[in-house]
């Protein structure tokens, strides 16, 4: 499966879906008009990877997202966690800018119920 890149727009992040390397990256800002529609290809890609039982690394490198995007981020985290509980190999990295305490706290909050390996990484 070829690598899929959704380029960033003013209100939506860049998304990289690299099946060969089991890598999903979401980078930038996320407040599209229709978050569910925007993240639909990401869920589809993720479900395919989970079905094929490939090893996954997911990098969130977001500096802002609205509440409807946060719902989508939580859904992605929940399905990764479920995959991990079913013995899938998962690594999640949550990047935040060094002085961005809010984004760090959001990462802590979103990961508090997760069992899958989740790392906070500053840059």
């Amino acid at each position, binding site marked *: 499966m070829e690598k899929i890149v959704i380029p960033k727009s003013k209100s939506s992040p860049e998304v990289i879906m690299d099946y060969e390397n089991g890598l999903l990256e979401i980078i930038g800002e996320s*407040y599209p*008009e229709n978050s569910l529609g925007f993240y639909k290809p990401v869920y589809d890609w993720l479900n395919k990877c989970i079905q094929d039982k490939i090893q996954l690394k997911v990098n969130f490198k977001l500096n802002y997202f609205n*509440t*409807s995007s946060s*719902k989508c981020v939580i859904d992605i985290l*929940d399905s990764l966690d479920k995959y991990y509980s079913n013995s899938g190999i998962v690594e999640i990295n949550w990047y935040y800018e060094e002085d961005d305490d809010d984004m760090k706290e959001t990462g802590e*909050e979103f990961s508090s119920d997760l069992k899958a390996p989740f790392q906070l990484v500053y840059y």
Partner: protein
Amino acid sequence: MNSVNLYDQYEAIKDHKILLSFKGAISQEVVTEFGSMIRSSLSTETNTKKIFAVFIELAQNIVRYSVEKEPSSEGNSGVGIIILREKKDFFYLSSGNLVLKDKVQKIKDRCETVNSMNKDELKAYYQEKIRNPTDADSKGAGVGLIDIARKSENPLQCEITPVDDFNSFMTLTVTFNKEIQ
């Protein structure tokens, strides 16, 4: 041409600044443009990120839920008004739009609920609601007001004015403390 004299308005708001004032059809395009304007005009403030985030929630609420639509406008949009004011110690972000009368009580109840909660309660409520959306009317995550209350750290003000048999006008005002740098 109508001659305009702004003196009365100028006098009425003597003690504060208006950083943004818009009335009209709000689309995603408008949300994005004003969002970046807010960022640049508040770039020296410590709570720019919070004000930006609340602006996006309020403006997208108008896009999604305003009863008033402009027939000529392209794509999704809703008519509303958004004003960002600055006073000595506070910023105030207000949004106004028409809502259906039968939704008014629900919105007021929600504001009361979040206003009754402290920081930790709001955090727990957010966590609960984002995983268990219960509102069939919601087009988003259903946690907008909770998120707004968390970022504002002040009570939300919700004012309702009856307009006609079907509609009311709702004004939401969100207050932000200016942080001492």
